[in-house]
């Protein structure tokens, strides 16, 4: 699908589907974050490097994902 197709599709999208998609994207983002942080730690990334990659502080990423 090219970007013109997608933008036509988004402007004609039923808001119920659009809002459900946003919820689904949040869930997907949380899950991709959880699995990626676990793999980054296993490969030796520091909390600071992971925080920088996610655009949040070392403390907040550690509070969320640290054991």
């Amino acid at each position, binding site marked *: *699908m090219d970007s013109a197709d*997608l933008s036509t*599709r*988004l402007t004609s*999208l039923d808001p*119920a*589907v*659009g*809002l*459900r*998609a946003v*919820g*689904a*994207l*949040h*869930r*997907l*983002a*949380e*899950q*991709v*974050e*959880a*699995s990626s942080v*676990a793999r980054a730690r296993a490969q030796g990334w520091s909390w600071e490097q992971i925080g920088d990659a996610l655009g949040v502080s070392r403390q907040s990423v550690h*509070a*969320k*994902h640290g054991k």
Partner: protein
Amino acid sequence: MFEQFAGETRAAVSDALEEARLRGDRRIGTEHLLLGALSHQPAAAAGTGLGVDAGAVRDALRELDTEALTAVGVDARGVDRPPIPASRKRTPFTSSAKSVLGGALAEVRREGARRITPAHLLIALLETKEPDPAADVLTRLGVDRAAARERLRRAA
């Protein structure tokens, strides 16, 4: 309200929290309460409730998400989707999940019962209207709400 919960209802609510983590949600919604309540109905009530089990609800929720993502051009099939870490703070209920808890309490009063059971939660969940997440999934699964409510009340 929580002190009036029967043991299975407490277990249903803590399962709802677990279902939220499994799905990647940071609040407990009506769809998670539905999954928790279905998992803690007494085995004897299996055929007397909604006519669907927790597995069917999980599958339908996943399908609804996949369809919505496809509608915005996102294909997440095959992506590793582990449970998200438990929050250190208390996980809040969504506002519709709070109304369902209130509705379960109203059902208990109507019956003159003393304890809130998973069946009371299910009766309150049947009252939700789309686009509430539990209502969406009940519709997707073709649950006959009036018939299910009758069966649950008769079994009480």
